[in-house]
């Protein structure tokens, strides 16, 4: 074994440089030699020899001992070195030396000491803890010794080698009494050694360090008496360093505007407890996304909570709360600005407990809302033969609603192969609405034809819950997975309504029809139960292929019991009173084959899907009607993605969606609750099938910060469920009936490009899309084909020249062309352009200024509509204190007082526009305290992590 000396580049250099010099007896370069032996004088071959600088342990040179235990390190600069020798099974040896006279320094025999077997086995091997060695004494850091949960530090110490704890709790290390115990280097409760060891939990300890320290007396006097005493330091795990943060913002403005919000969050590695509350009358509905994350913590997003396995069932699903819908059980987030004038208030608490094996979470959230919606809207309805009629609405709506939500989730990893997840969400809601409206109908030449005055009062209360259980099993064979899920959902609601309306018809000759009053009271009880179950099996075939087979079952039972009576006579109105019950069952079996290798991921599959709809409708004094329909469909599925070199991705797919007709559309009953808008059902409806195709790609170059994306979607509707309309040309009474139609479609393309104009200072983003859609409807038995073609282009410029000034500008242009096949005179073009500019300036003394203008343009030449709306908001704020925990802000909203909440819509056979009275100009002074420090808003957060 002559080749045992390995030489680094550094050493070779030194060696070559000094070779000649060494022969010339130059003492500036020396050789160091010696012989390494063990305690029984046996020489140790191939021991590692290192020369370090004593000052900072920098490695200067190294080598190895020969078979006879001799080593020689040649050609190192003359100087004091630390010689370090390591050899398996021995304590690393360390010695400082100054070279002797002459070219060779012989250190003679160097004896290594074996590592105590006990220490080695327990500390190094079992605990996988580093062992620290300083000179002759061993300081050891021990962690992860297995002790039962709930053990104290004392129990832990008993397990450590060389450590003993007597019955009174006195500690000995290497035979000596431990005089002092510190925690993270600090005295723990007045220096009683037992206080810490008896009270601290073993789980909280990361390291136990025992070392010799100067005596307290020596430390106090500064005179080193040479005595050393054993000291033990307990280093706490990072996770046991607890955290907490919170913030509160309160603001007050003119026009009685107010807002308050706050949250508090307390956490350690396992537990998180959070509180949130908010209230305002400034249309801020729901909490922001950041606040939601603070509130829900590790439960903000849950992978794999989707229990409805289907195509792509092996992938991950991303589930989190959505919009605030009637049946939405998750907490509303990012609600943005409410419509009209909205007062909102909410409060919640959340607790999460997370360990590797068990994850438990529960939350309660309450929110309420008072909303005033005063809207003025008009709608132009096109009939065939270029005829049309107009309606105008004056609506006054008052909504009140309250929701209580609870959630519970438990994820239990039984072992490395089996996991159970249980998710339960529930909601209780109550609300009422007052609606007062005046609806007027005008003929094409602007004559008032009829008008309706409505005064409705409704109230409801509902309860809903969704319970889901998922079991996942991984087999020993890698990639083989079995999963089963079951779910139960229910919704109960109880609603009452008083409907009062006065309908006046001016174009009717028969006096009987001239006036029609409605004054009725209805109560509706509805109840819905759904049972679901799914199975998934994934089988890998070699490295590249796998199959995914799934089965879904669902049965949903709905009962609606609706009683309508006349408010004056107190008699039941038979034509509107009904009871119906229906059950929709669903079975789907499918399988797909996936190729997934080296970035190419393609799957193709097929599924058979069966629906059955059964329903019975009962109306007083009429025979029971029964609907019994069964549908079956074969569905193919294709998905592909390519992860190409240098950050290029491509994807494509085909996916059909089948949606069953709603029971409301299937019921063969005429609904005349609105005398001017009669709904008929159609028991012959077929399910709608949408064929979706998509293809796209993106590219990102991190080096140049350039990104590109593009794509195309196509959607073809087969048996699309549309509502045919028959409009009485005299009364404008509309009768609708659902029907299937094939041939509607839409196609969209999109692209985006982002690149820096000047790196770190200016970034440009361009994007655009083109969409075309074809919508079919029958109007008075004539097929109307509405074609929408829209173009959109956007441009964004981000200027971030310095920490003191930032500017964000955007311009978006939108054009929509609508063409009608039967009423070509109504063809129109809508322009909707949006421009925005935001500026942030930082002034001295932590003063900041933010100004933001949005300028919206709506143009519809056909109706002579040309609306330009600038909304300008600005604020000045100051951060206070060194740690910047406080902020005072003065905000001016809608400085130009132009917020009108306008919306326009053109489709099928109507064009509508509406204006809702909303919050316009107001000023607000607000105060924020954030325990973690407030952040300025100079930069838009770009999600740059």
């Amino acid at each position, binding site marked *: 074994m002559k*080749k*045992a000396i*390995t030489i*680094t*580049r550094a050493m070779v250099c030194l060696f070559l440089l000094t070779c000649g010099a060494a022969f010339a007896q130059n003492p500036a370069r020396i050789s160091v030699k010696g012989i390494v032996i063990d305690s029984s004088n046996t020489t140790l071959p191939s021991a*590692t020899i290192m020369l*370090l600088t004593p000052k900072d*342990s*920098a*490695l200067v040179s190294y080598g*190895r001992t020969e078979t006879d235990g001799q080593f020689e390190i040649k050609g190192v600069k003359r100087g004091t070195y630390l010689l*370090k020798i*390591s050899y*398996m*099974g021995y304590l690393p040896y*360390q010695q400082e030396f100054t070279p002797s006279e002459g070219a060779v320094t012989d250190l003679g025999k160097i004896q290594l000491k074996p*590592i105590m*077997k006990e220490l080695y086995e327990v500390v190094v*091997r079992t605990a*996988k803890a*580093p062992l620290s*060695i*300083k000179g002759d004494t061993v300081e050891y850091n021990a962690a992860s010794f297995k002790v039962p949960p709930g053990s104290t530090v004392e129990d832990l110490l008993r397990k450590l080698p060389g450590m003993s704890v007597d019955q009174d709790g006195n500690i000995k290390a290497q035979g000596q009494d431990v005089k002092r115990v510190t925690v993270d280097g600090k005295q723990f409760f007045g220096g009683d050694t037992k206080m810490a060891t008896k009270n601290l939990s073993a789980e909280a300890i990361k390291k136990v360090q025992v070392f010799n320290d100067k005596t307290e007396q020596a430390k106090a006097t500064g005179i080193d008496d040479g005595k050393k005493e054993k000291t033990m330091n307990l280093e706490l795990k990072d996770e046991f360093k607890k955290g907490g*943060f919170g913030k509160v913002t309160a603001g007050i403005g003119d026009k009685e505007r107010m807002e308050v919000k706050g949250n508090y*969050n307390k*956490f350690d590695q396992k537990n*998180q407890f959070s509180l949130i509350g908010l209230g305002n009358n400034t249309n801020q509905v729901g909490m922001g996304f*950041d606040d939601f*994350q*603070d509130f*829900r*913590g*590790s439960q903000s997003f849950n*992978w794999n909570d989707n229990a409805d396995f289907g195509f792509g069932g092996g*992938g*991950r699903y991303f589930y989190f709360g959505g919009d605030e819908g009637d049946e939405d059980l998750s907490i509303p987030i990012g609600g943005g600005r409410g419509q009209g004038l909205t007062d909102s208030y909410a409060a919640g608490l959340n607790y999460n407990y*997370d360990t590797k094996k068990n994850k438990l979470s529960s939350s309660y959230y309450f929110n309420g809302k008072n909303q005033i919606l005063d809207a003025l809207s008009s709608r132009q309805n096109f009939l065939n033969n270029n005829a049309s009629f107009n309606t105008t609405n004056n609506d006054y709506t008052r909504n009140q609603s309250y929701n209580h939500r609870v959630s519970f989730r438990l994820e239990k990893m039984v072992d490395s192969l089996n996991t159970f997840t249980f998710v339960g969400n529930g909601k209780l809601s109550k609300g009422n609405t007052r609606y007062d409206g005046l609806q007027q109908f005008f003929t094409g030449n602007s004559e008032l034809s009829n008008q309706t005055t409505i005064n409705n009062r409704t109230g409801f209360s509902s309860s809903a819950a969704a319970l889901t259980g998922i079991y996942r099993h*991984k087999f020993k064979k890698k990639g083989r997975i079995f999963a089963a899920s079951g779910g139960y959902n229910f919704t109960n609601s109880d609603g009452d309504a008083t409907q009062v309306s006065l309908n006046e018809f001016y174009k009717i000759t028969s006096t009987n029809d001239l006036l029609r009053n409605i004054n009725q009271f209805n109560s509706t009880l509805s109840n819905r139960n759904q049972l679901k179950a799914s199975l998934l099996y*994934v089988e890998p075939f070699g490295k590249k292929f796998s199959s995914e087979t799934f089965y879904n079952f669902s049965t949903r039972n709905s009962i609606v019991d609706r009683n309508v009576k006349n408010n004056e006579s107190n008699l039941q109105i038979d034509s509107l009173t009904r009871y119906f019950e229906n059950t929709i069952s669903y079975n789907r079996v499918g399988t797909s084959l996936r190729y997934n290798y*080296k*970035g190419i*991921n393609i799957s193709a599959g097929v599924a058979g899907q069966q629906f059955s709809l059964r329903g019975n409708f009962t109306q007083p004094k009429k025979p029971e009607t029964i609907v019994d329909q069964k549908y079956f469909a074969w569905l193919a599925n294709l998905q592909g993605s390519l*992860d190409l*070199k*240098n*950050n290029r991705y491509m994807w494509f797919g085909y996916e059909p969606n089948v949606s069953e007709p709603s029971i409301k559309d299937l019921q063969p009953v005429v609904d005349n609750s609105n005398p001017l808008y009669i709904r008929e059902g159609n028991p012959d409806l077929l399910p709608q099938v949408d064929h979706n195709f998509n293809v796209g790609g993106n590219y990102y170059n*991190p*080096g*140049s*910060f350039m990104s590109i994306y593009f794509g195309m979607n196509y959607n073809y509707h087969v048996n699309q469920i549309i509502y045919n309309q028959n409009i009485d040309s005299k009364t404008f009474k509309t009768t609708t009936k659902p029907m299937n139609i094939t041939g509607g479609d839409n196609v969209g393309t999109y692209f985006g490009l982002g690149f820096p104009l000047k790196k770190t200072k200016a970034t440009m983003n361009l994007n655009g899309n083109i969409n075309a859609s074809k919508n079919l409807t029958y109007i008075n038995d004539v097929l109307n084909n509405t074609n929408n073609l829209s173009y959109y282009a956007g441009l964004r410029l981000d200027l*971030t020249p310095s920490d003191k000034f930032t500017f964000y500008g955007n311009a978006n242009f939108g054009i929509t062309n609508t063409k009608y096949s039967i009423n070509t005179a109504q063809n129109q073009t809508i322009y909707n352009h949006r421009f925005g500019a935001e500026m942030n300036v930082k002034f001295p003394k932590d003063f900041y200024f933010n100004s933001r203008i949005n300028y919206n343009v709506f143009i519809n030449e056909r109706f002579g509509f040309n609306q330009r709306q600038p909304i300008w908001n600005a604020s000045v704020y100051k951060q206070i204190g060194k740690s910047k925990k406080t902020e005072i802000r003065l905000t001016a909203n809608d400085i130009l007082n132009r917020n009108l909440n306008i919306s326009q819509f053109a489709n099928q056979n109507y064009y509508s526009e509406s204006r809702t009275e909303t919050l316009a100009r107001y000023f607000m002074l607000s105060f924020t305290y*954030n325990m*973690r*420090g407030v*952040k300025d808003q100079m*930069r838009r*957060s*770009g999600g*740059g*992590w």
Partner: protein
Amino acid sequence: MLLLSSGGVFAQKTEGVVHYEYQINWIKMMKKLPFLTQEEKDRMENTWKNDPDPKQKMNLYFNEKETLYTWGQDQQEYEDENWKSRNRELIIHRNFETEKRTDMLEILGKTYLVQDSLKHIEWKVMNQIKEVAGYICMKAVAEDKVKGQKITAWFTGDIPISGGPEQVYGLPGMILELDADDGTVMAIATSVEFKEVDKELTLPKLKGKKVNNQEFDAVISKYINDSIKMQRNPYWAIRY
């Protein structure tokens, strides 16, 4: 007191492969970003703490003269998921005899081919020992000035090769554990096999943008600086 020598200690084994698991702790990585507030960091940690960081299997082939570090499997497969992904180009070759480095790295949306002399790493050898993959290792620390990282390496004198995973080498024994920035990135040896690896040590056909040490360091440090200024995380697009 007993000697803890196994039969193999005296026989030098100088050819084989070290299997590593490479793991990025992205919460720690994100905590390094200077443009995030403490609140944002806490929020992210609380939100994502249950999400495991995937482990990548890596191999280091070695003999007395050279080492070659590359992927340990032909694509990335993640433990709990059916997710698989393509391996980026990654070959880190060190020739200790000719003192040459050859790195083929797909980073920053490009494949770079770094061919130059070996840079000297200034190691400090510390006083701790621990076991990694059955070997007693000593601790050494260094600093990566280009990436601004604190490097901790655990090396064993029992494998007398100055190689290591990723970009570290130059200690009196094989580096079996690499820890950059207190656990932000770890490459930990799981096992060592001694066998003939001549075939695996042969460099494949090399392609990519040719750069030298200085040019490559300049690309990395400029990218890190620019990204931090643009408030983006630079560490995903380079091999941290």
